[in-house]
């Protein structure tokens, strides 16, 4: 992400093509002297404020939701090869390429749509979506609807993260993940302990 940050700060990107930012950042990792290994999902959202338009690119099962007046108006599409195996960018160790899933940055799912003043945007990892149902997420976001107070927004983001974390370790809880697992023929119950990252923003155009 730090490479993405440098790309964006350097100004050499097109606001309407967040997938290109992901791609460029990914290929840039190959130019580092350190032999970087690892894999990740990615989600990039660009707000073109003067146009009131949002562009997004997503690879894998992280994602975003846009909430307006108590309901979800836009959300990203989860990309999976099969259950619990999301699309992912990866830099595998040399020689293991055949055994490792490595999706190309060009396979990112892109969406763009207009947004209004006061819309709430949350970008989060699957640890949030797997443990919190939409209703909970929307309820938390609604509490700060129309607010531009950074402290309040931070508190809301914290709250979402903390609830996700708590429920992740609740073994009896019918989490969204467990529900999905059952739909895929897997008898699962309880939350899903996983990385939880939340970014919450109010849109002002």
């Amino acid at each position, binding site marked *: 992400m*730090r*490479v993405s940050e440098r*790309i964006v700060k350097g100004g050499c990107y097109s606001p309407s093509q967040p997938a290109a930012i992901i791609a460029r950042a990914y290929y840039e990792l190959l*130019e580092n002297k350190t032999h*970087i290994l690892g894999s990740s999902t990615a989600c990039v959202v660009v707000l073109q404020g003067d146009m009131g338009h949002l562009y997004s690119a997503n690879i894998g099962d992280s994602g975003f939701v846009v909430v307006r007046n108590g309901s979800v108006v836009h959300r990203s599409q989860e990309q999976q090869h099969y259950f619990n195996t999301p699309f992912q960018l990866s830099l595998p160790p040399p*020689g293991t390429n055949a055994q490792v899933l490595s999706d190309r940055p060009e396979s990112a799912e892109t969406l763009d749509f207009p947004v209004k003043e006061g819309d709430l945007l949350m970008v989060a990892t699957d640890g949030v979506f797997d443990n919190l149902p939409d209703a909970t997420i929307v309820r938390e976001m609604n509490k700060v609807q129309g607010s531009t107070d950074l402290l309040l927004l931070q508190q809301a983001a914290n709250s979402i993260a903390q609830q996700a974390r708590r429920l992740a370790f609740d073994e009896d809880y019918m989490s969204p993940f467990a529900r999905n697992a059952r739909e895929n023929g897997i008898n699962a119950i309880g939350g899903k302990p996983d990385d939880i990252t939340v970014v919450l923003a109010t849109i002002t155009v």
Partner: protein
Amino acid sequence: MARLSSNQCVLEQYVREVTDFSSQYGSDGSISYVANNIIGKHTLYPEYGDFSAAYCLRSYGQWWTNCDSSPQPVQDPRPLLSPSMDFIDLKYEHSVYPIRVDLYETYHPGAVVRMWGSLEGKNWSLLWRGEPQTEVKGESRIFSPPIHQSHHKLINILRIEFNQGGHSYYSALDAVLLVGSTHTSSKPPTTTSSSSFHDLSITASVMRLGLHSAKSEEDIVAGVQFLLDEENLLKLIIVEEDDDYEEEEEEEEEEELVREEKEEDSRHSKIGGATEEEGIKEIKAILEEEGTSGGYFDLLPEELIVHILRQLDLRCVCRLAQTCHLLHKYASDPVLYINLNLKNWWWVVSNGTLEWLSGRCSLLQSLDLSWCGPYGALDTETFMEFIHTCGRQLTVLRLNNCHFIDNYCLYMIANVCPNLQELTMANCSRVDHLGFGELKKARSLSRLDLSRTRIDFHTLQLLLQHAPNLHHLSLNNCTQLDLDEVALTLATFNHGLTSLAAWKARGLTQRGLRALACITTLTDLDLGWALSGVVTEGLSELVRGCRGLKRLYLSALRTITDHDLYILAAQASCLTQLDIMGTRNVTPEAVHRLLHSCPTLQLLDVSFCEQVHSNHIFQWRMQFPHVCIKGGLKHQVRIV
């Protein structure tokens, strides 16, 4: 930014744009280790280390210059300024009178040797020059060299020159801050002695007060405010008069630098001899009788005068030529212009220079025009005319960073210079396949450097077919080439090849290595960042085929394994330089075996090799003191 009155202010600016540079570690289009990273505010300082967000120089030490395959510099008896290795041009948004320049050095500081200032690339003035500092502590620093006092001209471009020849590893710059004032004093001087003072400026006074080394903006603001006070201004002028201060009015700033040279010149022209006094008396007598106009010089044999003149650099020859008719005649002798190194004069070379030289260069064999003519100082017509007049005997032609070179120039070169052996044109971005194609006529080519140009594979293939004597080929940063195919072509047509440089090029795999293995004369292979895929068999064939392989750069070959190192240890006994930076799979044991088996090894780079740590490096340095081993730096906190 400090506003003092309605139209005077001191501006601090970071680089807005990089308009030219001689080399960079990274590739065009990347943001890792590239020249463009110097743009904008510093992001790394005060951290110290080898970070991708800095501008990283392409080479270090003597490893690229002291090897068999490196080009010999074109002879220059005594260059005015010691030659530098790299440069970068930094453009700023607002033109200012420079007060101070802050260089943010974040890795191996001390490689900067000169700073020039210019307005839109015209009239370069030397702001500072110094020696490379190799003994500086290994930590981040802001280097603010003192700007030469007499240079207060409006500038918006800074050229930084580097000499990293004494540095132990790559140098890097994070940012360059230019501090300057936008206006000179608006008050006209009130004294009558006008010629010296018509150019009195805030900047000159700032220098005198030592404000250019003031670190805080408040100090500068206070100082400038002091100067603007009318009373103080008058005081300064009076003080100057008393001190008999003279301002240089010469257009060419190196006047001061050349003064010492002139004194030496007059020593050269004295007659030497055992019985000097007697001789002089005799000569005086003869002269009084004959009254010749050339002074003592008339009595010297022609060969001796020419021999003396050959010791002088170009500028001294020109000045001598202005002294009398006789010396003018000798200074125009083409024998003095067989080797012409104009790179050492890049800041004064103009169309006029070439026009004036063309009358004297009928015997010209080696010409180095690298770095000359930037920002329109030289145009293609003048260059073509020059080559047309003087190029018939050319064997060596260096045109690195000559942005006036286009397809027509290559056409002229190819047709006029049948004996051309060496052509280097790195960074000449205006030439495309039409121009390159002309080079097929240069059948005697033994050295060709097309680094960072737009050479395409088909045209290159054509050139290689017609260059049976090619020994040295450089294709650094030519990312549009498929190196496997290039290697196959070389193996077919260029059997005498001794060196190939393809840094950051693309597409070289085992297949290409196998092809290169057929060129048994290869001694120097720079394949840094170019290789991909498993290479074991290809590498094995390569070292078996090229028994004389000395320099092998395999930087960022991520697939290299211990087994590959064992192959090198067993077969590549002549290795002097090896770079295997940036791998995860290589173990210290394999490196140790390599060190043990290659007695002639002088340089080994195992930086960024995950399994090689500083304690290994320390031990090896003790055990193998003749090898410079790079690597084992403590784990860097930031990877990107």
